[in-house]
């Protein structure tokens, strides 16, 4: 049944057909959809007719001549960079604050991890309510300042994308915190003690020793935050639906809208563009981050 030429002793207790169940799942739920994604992008599949015909690069030309796609791509990139920045800043800050293994810290770590396991849509709708012009945040600000505050946090064409990115970062910062905490734990106590004996203060210790030694955690956190948020949809859909004025219209929201119009092939083309964009971005980013790890 199995090719005998390549037989090694290990293959006796790990026969190749053990792979089959996992492979089936992988093929059916990952490879086939991805392939379909490539194929349908070159057709005229829509809800308007039953036949699906080959359409060449028609979808690509019409998408790239339409400014909306480029705008969505730009918004997506800005959003991803902002999320990566905030999520790592929050996560690292929390990890440093909660580094010591006290009883209180353990409880607080759990509290900050809860948003990670919450539904993203629920998070989005909660923040939408908090950030409304007559929402709770403005109420608190009003009570503190004594004036009537009605800032439209989700209604500003310049700053709303930052607000939404912070919400996204808030949801996921617990995960970054956990990974930074794990990273901090791996730092050898001897190195820190030597630095202390040399008279390094806390800031120098962090800047010159602890942060460089966190490089693997930074690689993982930045890469997942950056590339993960390029696929963002739920939080933005729940808070702004891409508004105001299209300034938070991520590519996925645009895809959702196009799909809803019945233009299935065009939506597929866009998701192919997104897939390619993430792939193209992933290689240099991960390569650069891995290079930083060379100090280890």
């Amino acid at each position: 049944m199995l090719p005998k030429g390549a037989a090694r002793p290990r293959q006796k207790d790990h026969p190749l057909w053990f792979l089959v169940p996992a492979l089936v799942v992988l093929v059916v739920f990952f490879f086939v959809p991805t392939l379909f994604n490539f194929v349908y992008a070159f057709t005229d599949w829509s809800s308007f007719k039953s036949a699906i015909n080959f359409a060449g690069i028609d979808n690509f030309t019409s998408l790239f001549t339409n400014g909306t796609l480029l705008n969505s791509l730009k918004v997506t990139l800005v959003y991803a960079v902002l999320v990566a920045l905030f999520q790592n800043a929050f996560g690292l800050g929390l990890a440093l604050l909660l580094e010591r293994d006290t009883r209180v810290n353990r409880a607080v770590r759990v509290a900050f991890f809860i948003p990670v396991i919450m539904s993203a849509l629920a998070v989005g709708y909660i923040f939408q309510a908090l950030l409304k012009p007559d929402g709770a945040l403005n109420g608190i600000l009003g009570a503190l300042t004594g004036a009537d505050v009605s800032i439209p946090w989700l209604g500003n064409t310049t700053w709303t994308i930052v607000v939404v990115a912070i919400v996204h970062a808030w949801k996921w910062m617990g995960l970054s915190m956990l990974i930074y905490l794990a990273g901090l734990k791996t730092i050898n106590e001897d190195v820190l003690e030597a630095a202390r004996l040399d008279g390094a203060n806390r800031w120098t210790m962090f800047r010159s020793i602890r942060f460089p030694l966190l490089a693997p955690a930074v690689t993982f956190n930045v890469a997942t935050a950056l590339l993960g948020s390029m696929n963002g949809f739920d939080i933005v859909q729940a808070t702004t639906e891409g508004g105001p004025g299209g300034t938070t219209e991520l590519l996925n929201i645009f895809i959702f809208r196009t799909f809803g119009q019945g233009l299935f092939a065009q939506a597929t083309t866009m998701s192919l563009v997104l897939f390619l964009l993430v792939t193209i971005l992933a290689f240099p980013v991960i390569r650069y981050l891995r290079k930083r790890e060379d100090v280890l």
Partner: protein
Amino acid sequence: MKKPFRYALALAAAGALTLTACSDPGAGTDDAGPVDWPAQDADLSGTTLTIWAAQNSNTVPDSVIAGFEDLTGAEVEVVTIPDPYEQGVQTKVATGDMPDLAFWQPTASQLTALNASQNLQPLDDAPWLDAYKPELRDITGVLDDTRYATLITTPAVEGVYYNKEVFAANGITETPTDWDSFLQTARDLKGAGVTPFHEMAADRWGTQWWVQVQLADAAADGLWDRVNTREELFTDPTIQGAIDTYQGLIEEGLFNEDIKTATFEDQGAALLAGDAAMAVQVNSFFGQLQSLADTEELNEKIGFFPISPSGNVGTFIPDQSNALVAFKTGDADQESAARQLLSYWMGDGYEDFVNAQSTVSLQTDVETPATVPEALLSVSDSLGTSVGSMQASAIANPDLYIYLADMIQGTKTPAEVAEATQSQFDELAKAQGAEGF
């Protein structure tokens, strides 16, 4: 170890490619239309019918279902498809999932979006058609000369909801009779320190009514037929002019100050409280008002008049809760039972239905219940002379409202709104295979 793995991968890829060569699973049966309309009380024991409904229409059929189940022994199940309803239904149908009946917007663009000729049962010789009031019988639900949708309640009309008390307090006794007097009224109100108009750009969807009511005369003159064949564009003077006028009125300060952040809920509250005198809206806005006040208060405070450039012509826009379609499921018994339910709904069950829903009757012989608020009666009175909206008459329904909301937020100019709408319309029309695109 590596080689067989590669082999498996190649096999999987080949398999996937073969699969892709199939056609759209949404393709329906292509047989001839129904010939028989079963009696309303024919026995249907053991039959289960499924109706898809949206979150705001899933209780509409309750009284009909109860009556039908008693009469025939059938079981009727209402399945709620989450919002956005149209997108959910379209996606399900495109992947081969179909109910027996569904609530659906009976317009040309939305019937096209469901691929009506393939997926829906034609209802041309339905027994209830003659019961309709004559002016409503053929108002909508027809695509390429075939009837696919059954109107069950009055379609929404785009027009002006106004606060009667604010009008009275400012000495306005007659409602405006054309566009010029409409704007004059607004400017007088502004002069008296009242906010004339309310708009809800944060929720976006209401923005398109302002452009559409301005197009009523052109629509009566075949505007949408010309748009449908690309003889006239959104960027041509008629539609572009309406968009420019809308922007001009906003810049003139005739709208609420919080236009960019105001929501649908804010709009209802503002009109009821008299913070704004008028809002150009559709029937669902009145539904919102009904959740804030009882019929007596609404009769006292809220009125409705249609508006168009040259007079008081309304623009009608049926929505999903106004009509039903029956699917070609491929099972003759199920299809026949679905037609029977429609016959009952529009037949013996109709009187119960309008009373339970407290809605305006579409049929000559069934009276409208006395509980229907006055504003809704004005809406349905305007229906007979109204013209079709973009949604009702154009073959595609581009996201004009999103682009208009962008304009209000300041990220698009009026010219860009028209361009974006036209280019999306082109894409949709091309996908449908419409001529000229």
